[in-house]
């Protein structure tokens, strides 16, 4: 399977918008949307848990070409904490309860938009990675925190 790309990101954005799915890009893919230069494999989406949003999400995913059994669809609708999808046109991680973030509504209140992509604030991306406390994030967290300073300064300049 080829790497995730801009066109696929737009497909997510447009399909989720059509179905009114409430979600945010999070993790390194979110940071990359904000301008952070690094590499990653998958897109990570923080999705608001709730029956209506869950149903909308399943419709959007099926429309994008993900092959979900009824059991899998039910798990996604229910909002299990973490769902890993490799059964569609690209890989996708769905996170309903990321480490380090209390509630979706809080992250939503801080989120930023990049070309119509809803993205977690850099502080939430960092908080989530810090709370996960994984070996693979140890080095990148230092660079991500440096990027945070740069990004905030850029935001100041752009008004």
């Amino acid at each position, binding site marked *: *399977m*080829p*790497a*995730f*790309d*801009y066109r696929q*990101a737009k497909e997510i954005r447009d399909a989720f918008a059509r179905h009114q799915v409430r979600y945010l890009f999070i993790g390194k*893919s979110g940071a*990359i*949307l*904000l*301008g*952070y*230069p*690094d*590499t*990653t*494999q998958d897109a990570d989406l923080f999705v608001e848990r709730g029956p209506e949003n869950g149903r909308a999400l399943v419709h959007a995913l099926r429309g994008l070409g993900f*092959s*979900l059994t009824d059991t*899998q669809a039910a*798990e*996604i609708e229910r909002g*299990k*904490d*973490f*769902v*890993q*999808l*490799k*059964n569609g046109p690209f890989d996708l991680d769905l*996170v309903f*309860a*990321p*480490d380090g973030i209390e509630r979706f509504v809080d992250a939503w209140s801080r*989120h*930023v*938009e*990049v*070309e119509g992509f809803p*993205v977690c*604030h850099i502080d939430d991306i960092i908080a989530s990675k810090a709370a*996960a*406390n*994984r*070996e*693979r*994030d*140890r080095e990148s967290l230092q*660079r991500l925190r*440096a*990027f945070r*300073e*740069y*990004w905030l*300064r*850029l*935001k100041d*300049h*752009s008004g």
Partner: protein
Amino acid sequence: MKSGETPPREELQTSAHEFADLDIPREWLEEFEAAARRPLAVRMRYAFIKTYKPVMDDAPYRSFETMEEYRRWCETNLPRWLGYARV
């Protein structure tokens, strides 16, 4: 441009000295500046790569009731060198 979006670098009317007071290693700062000059589509082309991750990539679907369950699964099942274990 919407609030919070990183604007294209050429639109910013800033220069490197405006970041000089930030405690950022020069090499990283240059990388951030270079990324800010690129359109999002190009940034994404450079950023997303696909390499096979053993075990992780071997199932088309996985789900976990809790993040703790997912973290434990990673620590038990994935090769250590993938880096998914907690510190």
